[in-house]
Every structure is written in C-alpha cells, then in structure tokens.
C-alpha cells in the first residue's frame, strides 16, 4: 500500500519516545507534554470507571432480590448516587476528551502541543482536587440525593452535600480548561494545509464538545454554588421553606446536564468516524454532514433541557416546545448513524478489535437513541419518566455508545500510546462477552420500565423479580469482560509485540509518526495536502 501523504514515517530506527524522554515520577508530575497528561488522565478515568463499575455491581447485587439483599435502603441510595456521580463527573465527561483527546488532538493537527500546555496540566490537577473532594464526601458519609441533586431534598437532607457539590463545581473547571484549550488549539495550531475541510472528524467532534464544555459548564458551576448557598445560608432561591422555587433548580441543572449528555456522546461519535473509515479502508460517507451535524448538536442541545421535566408541573406549552426541539436534535444523530452504515458499503472491512467495538456502538447506540424518541414524545414520556425505561435508555447511549467508543478508541490508539500490541483473540472474547452481558443487563430494564418499575428503588414489588435477576446476571458477564480486558491490556505493556508506526493503515497525521511518538511529536511540522480519509481504492481515489 502506498503512502502519498507527506511526512509518513518509514519503519526504521526508533528514536527516544515521550515515555522515555524524561525519567522519574517528578518528570510526570511536572510534565506539560499533552501526551503524558493524556496518559495520566487515562489512568485516572480507568480507575474511576472501576470505582463506578464496582458501585454498579453492588447496585445490581442489591436488586437481585426484593427487600434487603446485601445492604439497607440508606446505603443503597448512597451507592447509586455515587455510581451516577462517579460515572458522569469523574469518568465519562473527561474520558474521551481529556484522556484520548489530549493525546491525539495535537497529533492529528500536526502540532507540537496544545495551545496552553500549562493550563492543560492545571486542568489535570484541578481534576485531581475535585476527585479527592468527591472521595472525601464519600468517606464523610456519602450523599443520597441522586446525581441530579434535586431540591428541596438536597437542600434539607443531612450529609456532606456541600462538599459533593463543590467537588462537581471544581471538576467543572477542569472540564472548562480542557474545552477552552482545545478550541484555541483547533483554531490556531493546525499544520499548514490542514484546512477545516481536511480535519479528521474526531477533531470536529472534540471541537463541538469543547464548545458545549465552555458554554454549559459555568451554568452548572453557578447552579451548584447556589445550591451550596441554599444549604449554608438558606437564601431562598430553591428552598420552598424560605420562599424559593424548587422547580427552578431543575431548570438550572438540566440547562447544563442535557448539553452534558452530548459532551459525553460527541467525542464517542468522533472516534466512531475514525474507526469506521480505518477498518473499511474507505473515505467517510458524508464528511460535511457529519462535521456539521456535530456543530448542530452542540447548538441545539442548549434548547431542549425541559424534556427532563415534562411531568414536573411546568406548563403544557413549555412541554410542547421542549418536545419539538428534542426531536430536532435527534436528526443530526440520525444522519451520523446512517452515514457510518453507508461507509461500510463496498469497503474492505477488517474485524480487528477496535472495529468490533465500533460495530457494537452502531447497534447499541441506535437502540439507545431510538428509545429516546419514546421519551421525547410527550404522551409516552408521562408513563415512562423516572422508570427503568429511562435507566435503560441512558445506559444504552452512555455505555452502549460512549463506553464502547471509548474502549474502541483505547484499542485503536493503544499501540500509538504505548508502542505495544495486545492479544487480539482475548480482545474478541472480551468484546463478545460485553455485548451479550450488556444486552442481558439493560434490555430487560426497558421491559420492566415500561411495565412500571420506578427507578431509584431499593425495593420492588414481586412481579419484577425475574427481570431484575436476569439483569443482575448480565452484569457478571460485563464484569468478566472488563476484567479480561484489564488483564490483556496490562499484559501487553510488558510482553506485547512492538507496535509499528501505523498498524491499522490509517491516514490521519498521528499515524505518520513513530509509535510511541517522540516528545515533540514532529521533527518538522508536516504540510498537509489532502483529507484524512483518502484511501486508495480499486476504482481510484476518493471522490467528494
């Protein structure tokens, strides 16, 4: 296969890579290298994922039987709250942008680093501070408000709620720093010839994500600050006992947290575009549509928050508008899904590990997204709201979508990050185990949800027992899948085969340099002459 892109590495002598460039713990703690910061973030989010995952296993274990199985109601409420908080704020929001995006964004742009390397490191440390605060809140008794912190419950209940909200507040800053850095990097640090129309779709996705991070996170910040003030000073903004409006909090909260769900999915969609093209050896179908739909999602996502509040007592009229806008934001996602499917057409499809996860994404995210239609429709949401149907919906999009994309991306860039290949056979076993386990766990939840099983229930009526038990058994398969994955990935660090510069035959700039890259990425800033998906085909070069 010929490489026409300028600057592609020739397999040859390896130079000192970024992992070896400097030695010792201090060289990591003080690093401003985006790749090292990415790796530190990666280690952190994998740990928080494990923590959140263990909480999830405990939640499911408790629900194995009605009534008390392994813990009491108060403990259960703390565990599921923590599961949600950890997964959302400590894992999924930083997972793709801060861990993987940090590593690949400058490489994809042909840049030596992000625009503000020190801000990047600051973001990581702010993240650490937020994490420590959150863990402190856990040790100090935990909070049982649900990840949504709804008032007046959160304003009145005992426990370290202020500490937990301040943790989320601090974590928000870390997210803002990353987003701000990425926007400036994409605008200002592109290599010569790398026009907007030649950017990898991962970059477009990270750019759109960053817009949301910068625009929405401050609102969460002020919301949490107000909640903390409400608890400390009883200022009477949310607390009805002090003349406040409890439903106002929900508007504030969802104004951030709905866009936040797109902070979670957009980078995953970016990874999808990379995986589908690379493993089909084919240009992406509908580049412009995918790029622009990311931006469309980012913009419209600010206008739909009220769909979480259809039965909160807001006016029928508001419900109507939010329902309508919700459907508008579904269309750009639909466009992407269909474009990825079309990209497979007449490709040269490899089923390497990353692609297995990409195909899972396609199927699972479609289910998650389509079930969002039931929820966006007013007449059906009234019945489904706050039942396990919603729980299943968001696990299909967040786990079936974002987590599979994250895992796919991890397997895709792993050789680039660490210079090692992993065991493909075990990877296949793990992905199949996950696929089965996931569907067993969460498909059952759609059924019990529409049958009326409310969420955040420690206890349940007899008729749901069978479904709950099947669901819990599914999680054991998920757990096994991740355990296996952890095993072969860690093993690869020690004994994996050396990775070539471009193991997958991909076309974007990060594959043009050695694996792992040198400290400053490129000896010479490359000049870009073509788009990132210009694969040669049997019928000539890609047509746009």
């Amino acid at each position, binding site marked *: 296969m010929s490489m026409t892109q300028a600057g592609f590495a020739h397999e040859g002598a390896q130079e000192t890579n970024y992992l070896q460039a400097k030695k010792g713990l201090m060289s990591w703690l003080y690093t401003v290298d985006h790749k090292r910061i990415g790796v530190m973030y990666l280690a952190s989010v994998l740990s928080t994922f494990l923590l959140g995952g263990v909480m999830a296993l405990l939640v499911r274990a408790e629900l194995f039987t009605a009534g008390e199985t392994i813990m009491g109601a108060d403990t259960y409420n703390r565990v599921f709250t923590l599961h949600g908080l950890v997964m959302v704020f400590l894992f999924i929001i930083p997972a793709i942008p801060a861990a993987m995006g940090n590593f690949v964004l400058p490489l994809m742009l042909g*840049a*030596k*680093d*992000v*625009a*503000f*390397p020190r*801000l990047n490191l600051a973001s990581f440390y702010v993240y650490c501070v937020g994490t420590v605060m959150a863990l402190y809140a856990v040790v100090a008794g935990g909070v049982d408000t649900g990840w949504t912190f709804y008032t007046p419950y959160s304003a009145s209940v005992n426990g370290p709620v202020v500490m937990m909200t301040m943790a989320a507040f601090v974590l928000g800053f870390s997210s*803002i720093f990353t987003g*701000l*850095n990425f*926007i*400036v990097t994409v*605008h*200002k*640090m592109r290599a010569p010839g790398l026009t907007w129309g030649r950017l990898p779709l991962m970059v477009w996705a990270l750019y759109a994500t960053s817009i949301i991070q*910068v*625009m929405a*996170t*401050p*609102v969460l*910040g*002020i*919301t949490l*600050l*107000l909640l903390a*003030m409400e608890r400390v*000073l*009883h*200022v*009477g*903004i949310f607390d009805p006992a*002090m*003349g*406040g*409006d409890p439903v*106002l909090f929900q508007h*504030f909260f969802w104004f951030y947290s709905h866009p936040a769900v797109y902070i979670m999915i957009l980078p995953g969609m970016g990874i999808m575009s990379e995986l589908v093209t690379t493993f089909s050896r084919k240009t992406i179908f509908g580049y412009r549509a995918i790029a622009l739909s990311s931006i469309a999602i980012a913009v419209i996502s600010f206008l739909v928050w009220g769909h979480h509040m259809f039965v909160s007592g807001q006016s029928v009229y508001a419900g109507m508008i939010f329902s309508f806008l919700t459907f508008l934001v579904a269309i750009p996602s639909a466009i992407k899904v269909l474009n990825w499917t079309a990209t497979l057409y007449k490709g040269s499809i490899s089923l390497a590990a990353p692609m297995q996860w990409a195909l899972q994404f396609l199927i699972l995210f479609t289910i998650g997204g389509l079930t969002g239609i039931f929820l966006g429709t007013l007449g059906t949401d009234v019945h489904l709201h706050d039942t396990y149907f919603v729980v299943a919906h968001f696990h299909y999009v967040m786990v079936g979508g974002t987590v599979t994309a994250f895992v796919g991306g991890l397997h895709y860039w792993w050789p680039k990050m660490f210079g090692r290949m992993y065991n493909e056979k075990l990877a296949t076993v793990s992905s199949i185990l996950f696929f089965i386990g996931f569907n067993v766990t969460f498909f059952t939840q759609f059924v019990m949800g529409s049958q009326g099983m409310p969420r955040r229930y420690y206890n349940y009526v007899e008729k749901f027992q069978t479904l709950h038990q099947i669901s819990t058994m599914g999680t054991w398969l998920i757990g096994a899948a991740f355990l296996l994955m952890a095993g072969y990935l860690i093993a690869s660090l020690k004994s994996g085969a050396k990775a070539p510069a471009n193991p997958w035959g991909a076309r974007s700039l990060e594959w043009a340099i050695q694996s792992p890259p040198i400290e*400053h990425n490129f000896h010479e*800033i490359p000049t870009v002459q073509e788009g990132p998906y210009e694969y040669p085909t049997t019928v000539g070069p890609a047509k746009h």
Partner: protein
Amino acid sequence: MSIVKHQVGHHFFSGAQESSSAKLGMWLFLVTEVLLFSGLFVAYTVIKSTNPEMWAEASSHLDTTMGTINTIVLITSSFTVALAVRAAQTNKNGEKNGQLFWLLFVTILLAGAFLVVKYFEYSHKFHVGMLPGEAYFYDGIPHANAHRFFGVYFLMTGLHGIHVVIGMGVLTWVLVRARKGHFYEGYYTPVELGGLYWHLVDLIWIYLFPLLYLV
C-alpha cells in the same frame, strides 16, 4: 530603563500565533465568566417577578450614593487600564516602562477603593440585619421574603467582589512583570489580557448597579 525580550513558546511557530492564541483563549474565558453570572441574573429575574413589590421596596434600601461612587471608581479604573495597555503597545526602548507601572498602580488603587466602599456598605447591612436567608433581621421592609432580595444582592455583589480581588491579583502580577521590563511593543499579551479581564469586571458592575440599586 531597559526591556527583556520575550521567548516564544516552543510549540508555536511565531509570536503572532502565540499572542492570537492567548487572546482567543481569554475571550473564551470571558464567555465562561459571563455565563457564570448569567445564572445569577436568571435567579434575579425569577425572584423579582415572583415578589415585585418586596423587590422594589428592598431595592430602595440600598445606598445609591455609595453605589454611584463605586460605579465612577470602576469606570475610571477601566480607563486607566486601557491607557496602560496603550503604554505597553507603544513602549519602544523601555521609555514607557515607568508610565506603564504607574497606570497599573492607579488601577489597582482604584480597585482597592471600590472594595473599601463596599466594606462600608456591607458592614452597615450586617449591622441593621439586611442579610440573606435566616440571618435576616431587619424590620424596615414591610414585605415577606425580603431576605430573598438580600440573598441575591449578596450573592451577586459577593461574586463580583471576589472577581475584583482576583483582578487585583492579576494586575499586581502584571505590574511586577512590568517593573522588570517584560512588556514592550513586541510583546504585551499579559497586559492586554489583564486589561480585558478588568474590563469584564467593570462591565459586570455596570449591569449590577442599575439592576440592584436603581430598579
């Protein structure tokens, strides 16, 4: 006086790329600041619309004179910081180092003056009990829920006050570097960004003043 030449960051091609990146970054940061305050403006609007009479009455108990003085103080400081940026931009061989230093110094002084006035305002309110939430004990406003007005008042002016303090810190850092001769016509990004930040702090006050004191 002399100047110290600035080193462009290793990952940039040029000083122009570096300074335009820094500026874009600053503007984005200012957007986040505006959005942070926007949440408070929403809370303001909601509470005002639910208790309009209480609001009007409570608002008239604020000290408009002090508010006006502070507005003038901040507008003046915006002007001096703008002059400071101008001085840095036209600083050729270090001949404007001194001017730059004094302009920044006056700006910081004005910021301090603002805080002093605020201190007198706050301590009066603490004294008579115009306080947020349960701490409220003032009996001069014949409306229920007047504590909600003061909740919003203290949150908004308090958050703004914190920004004034941060702004003073930033400007002091710029001042120290100016003293060392770091800024000249070829490099004045920190002065410019510090100035932008200070303008934002002023601008927020320009909204707070009429909304809280005059409505």
